[in-house]
């Protein structure tokens, strides 16, 4: 959690869609407000 903004960041599986096909990677992402 970013203490300055209160926003929660989580390790998430994120989908990548390229010409070669789809795959997923684990990234730090934040879904919605806090």
């Amino acid at each position, binding site marked *: 959690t970013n203490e300055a*903004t209160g926003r929660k960041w989580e390790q998430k599986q*994120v*989908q*990548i869609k390229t010409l070669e096909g*789809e795959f997923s990677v684990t*990234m730090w992402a934040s879904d919605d*407000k806090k």
Partner: protein
Amino acid sequence: STAVRKDASSGFNWGCYLEKHGCLAAPVSCFRHVPLCAQWEDIEVGLQVEVLNTCTTLLTKVYWIATVIRLAGYMALLRYMGFEDDDRHDFWCNLGIADVHPIGWCAVNSKLLVPPQEFNKRISDWKSYLMQRLVGASTIPVDFHVMMTDSMKCPFRQGVRVEVVDRSLVSRTRTAVVDTVIGGRLRLIYEDAGLGSSGEVLSDFWCHMLSPLIHPISWSVRVGHLIKETDKSVDMSSHPAFRKVFCDSVPGQFKKLRTVYLEGGFFREGMKLEAIDPLNLGNICVASIRKVLFDGYLMVSIDGVEIGDGSDWFCYHASSHAILPTGYCQSNDISLTLPPGYDQATFTWDKYLEETGAEAAPRRLFNTDAVQHGFVPDMKLEAVDLMEPRLVCVATVQRCVGRLLLLHFDGWESEFDQWVDCESPDIYPVGWCELTGYQLQPPIGPEPLE
């Protein structure tokens, strides 16, 4: 003076300008009144985004992954993934309006990620390449653009009536109607402004919705401020802003000012102080309290240049940054503008107070609280020319003194510099004009436009 400044064409490129001058921009989080201020600490260098791929010959709109290399206000310098350390193709974009999204947006919205043509063949296995670079990295929040839209809502709309300072006589207010709202800045048309032969408004005023110069209807009567009676014989009905159903503004639409406490004494008529000259905002002058109004408002005049009829008095709230205790300039190495006939070398407050038989306003009455604002000299920003408040210009922080910032308008002489509070609603981050659709006035002179 600055009124002769003509609207310049758009096309000013902040990215080129910052790179050419090797300057930093003030971060968005320094500006409490702007969209996403509170959330901007989550936006940082190194974030990965999906952005429109402009380096392709494909006819369909495709995207590619890019890294935030640098931030300057709302602007970000991006580099497409695959260019590694090659900065030749870096590009600036405004994060608030560009086709920039969190990683994963393309998959959800059935858009394709296609690498720029130049290095499509250079890397054979894009999947491994992307996996290697994206795993463990961060991307912008999913709701970034939703938050941006939410934070740009404004409680004012066309047809709302307010009381605002009369630009032709600063000691009084006048009733005006909101005509246009851009990024929280209001174009106000005085109710009896009059219309020219081609329907143009003869007198208007621009200010931010949080400006201390605008007030709800009936404010002037309540606090005891002079207000011009609207000339009912002036017909404004053919102007679109006056065809709306009028709605009086109410206190809840305005910035709530810091409460002032009267226990232990308050400002009194005749007290001396130092004040920013409202008609020459680069000067901090010897000044006097002329009248104490209700709710903590004060009428102030600049010593030695009064006309004598009170028409040059100006209303400041007791919590305003623009009024300062005697000796403030000396303590902070600022040149105090003296009344005519006084000399910088020999002027002392003690002597002046004795000569004028006046007392200094007590220091405890002023709002000089220290604040961690984050501005430092040489930072670039967009700032309103308060002498022509329609204009938002390219500017530089020249000095920081406590809460006060001395702003220099790029390309202009230092005589146009202005002191503003660090929380002034008239200063904006780089890219604010582009974000809101307000026209930015580029510096005059031979600067790169593209």
